[in-house]
């Protein structure tokens, strides 16, 4: 009897805190959505969205950030996939040090990293701020560093789930060289892991503010801040657009990973 009572009480307690958490999650999003639709007095309209989509600076920022995100993903995958593959195959004792290095961007706050990057690369011998192209190289490097913890972990987990050694030896005994082992055997097996890392990379770069702000490049982040200083309704609309982008990329990830889960199960059952 006592136990039944306590069970009932805990479940009320659980629902109370659960509802509070849901409210905390969704009220601000609902508030933003509602606010973004109220630009015209008395009616709901998409006016704030129309203004943003008609603003060439928004599209400039969007294009720039998407381009940067795609290049970041390519560079990041090009660095991490071969490195982690090599680590699994040839230097497993490097794992602890690799784990520490790749977690460093969590320890060093973004603002500090940018501070160091700017002061290091704004003067010789490694000056990278003399042209916009060179600055963009610095931007990409910074983005790769910032998204490194996600990319490393995604590829690492993917690599752990396949038998790297057997696959490599099998491919080599069939006459593949290193490049073909990586390109035709390892990477196809890592598709999902790389996709996962890439999507988080994408979301990170699209929302990043500090790097672009201090290197004065036309990314989406600084555009948002500037809009926030002068406008009332457009920032809310922009926040909704930004959320949609993030959710779209993470939803895509969810979709692909659940599909591959199902495929795996089909293979097992047949």
């Amino acid at each position, binding site marked *: 009897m006592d136990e039944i009572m306590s069970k009932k009480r*805990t479940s009320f307690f659980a629902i109370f805190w*659960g509802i509070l958490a849901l409210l905390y999650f969704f009220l*601000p999003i609902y508030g933003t959505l509602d606010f973004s639709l109220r630009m015209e007095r008395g009616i709901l309209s998409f006016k704030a969205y129309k203004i943003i989509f008609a603003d060439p600076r928004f599209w400039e920022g969007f294009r720039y950030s998407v381009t940067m995100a795609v290049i970041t993903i390519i560079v990041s995958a090009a660095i991490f996939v071969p*490195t982690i593959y090599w680590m699994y195959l040839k230097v497993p004792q490097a794992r602890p040090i690799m784990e520490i290095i790749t977690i460093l961007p969590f*320890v060093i706050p973004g603002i500090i990293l940018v501070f160091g990057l700017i002061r290091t690369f704004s003067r010789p011998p490694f000056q990278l701020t003399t042209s916009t192209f060179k600055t963009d190289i610095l931007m990409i490097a910074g983005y790769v560093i910032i998204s490194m913890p996600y990319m490393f972990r995604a590829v690492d987990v993917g690599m752990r789930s396949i038998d790297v050694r057997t696959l490599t030896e099998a491919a080599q005994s069939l006459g593949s060289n290193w490049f073909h082992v990586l390109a035709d055997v390892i990477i196809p097996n890592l598709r999902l892991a790389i996709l996962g890392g890439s999507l988080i990379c994408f979301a990170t770069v699209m929302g990043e503010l500090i790097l672009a702000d201090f290197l004065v490049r036309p990314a989406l982040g600084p555009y948002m*801040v500037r809009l*926030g200083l002068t406008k009332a309704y457009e920032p809310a609309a922009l926040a909704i657009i930004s*959320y949609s982008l993030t959710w779209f990329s993470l939803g895509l990830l969810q979709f692909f990973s659940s599909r591959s889960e199902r495929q795996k199960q089909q293979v097992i059952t047949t």
Partner: protein
Amino acid sequence: MSQMFATRQRKLWREYPLWNWVGLFPFFIFIVFFLVLPSLRLFTGAFTDQEGGLTFDNLKVFQNPNVLKAYIMSLQVSAITAFVGGFFGFLVAYSITQGGAPRWMRNVISTFSGLAANFGGVPLAFSFIATIGQTGIITAMLKKACFNLENYGALAQFLASGGVNVSDITNVCPLNPYTYGFSLYSLSGLVLAYTYFQFPLMILTITPALEGLKKEWYEASTNLGATPAKYWRDVALPVLMPSILGASLLLFGNAFGAYATARALTGGSIPLVSIYIGQQIRGDVLGNPNEGYALAFGMVAIMTLTIVAYSLLQRRATRWMKS
């Protein structure tokens, strides 16, 4: 345990020669250029003078009242949000793991926690402005909940007979947070906004520990006559303590390094260290670039301490989860 690790490492070294490390060089070169070099620049900058000689004078920057204020403010914000977010997050995590919340609620909360923990940044600030800023939707709703004491005749008469000036309390809006000194653009607002990404992080980090609480422990202690309160005090909390402390440290560090949300929300009117460093990058507000490096160095030192303590606690915490 550590001996086992050492022998395993020694065996690995024999099997995989040093030469193999060459394959990791491209990665290391990238890291040296874009992570080690910038960090070294800050570090050496913090301990050299304008001419390049070794000095500890730059640390005097911490005697600057503005710098001190910024550090205190940052530590305060981080501690408050770690505590508020940690406490709230713990209760929610408990509810969805042990507390018997409905399944759909569990799924929504755990999925959304992963999203919200990475939410930060400028859009979050905009959301809070649109929701609970001066003209926000929720603020407007709360402002509308007013009443005129004159409409409550009996109560007004009663209060008037008690010597209260009734005309002072006409049109009272008891729910409007702005009448109680709340402002989204101040410390309280910053705490409210930071909690949005802090408590989901708590849920994510504490859930594995809560799932590690075995049912048998509860059954054993109740069989031995313990009340639920005694079970919590003597069994569950001691087991969970390292995880709770570790997660709180993680939250602390998370808030300490944050920049974008504070910048977009308050426009830099709240003096946080991260905001101060931003101003130092823009234009040398301290008048001495090396003192700027010392400022950054202090921030890294605090973050490092936090994360090291976190990982030590985490190691202690996993002891219970392995078996």
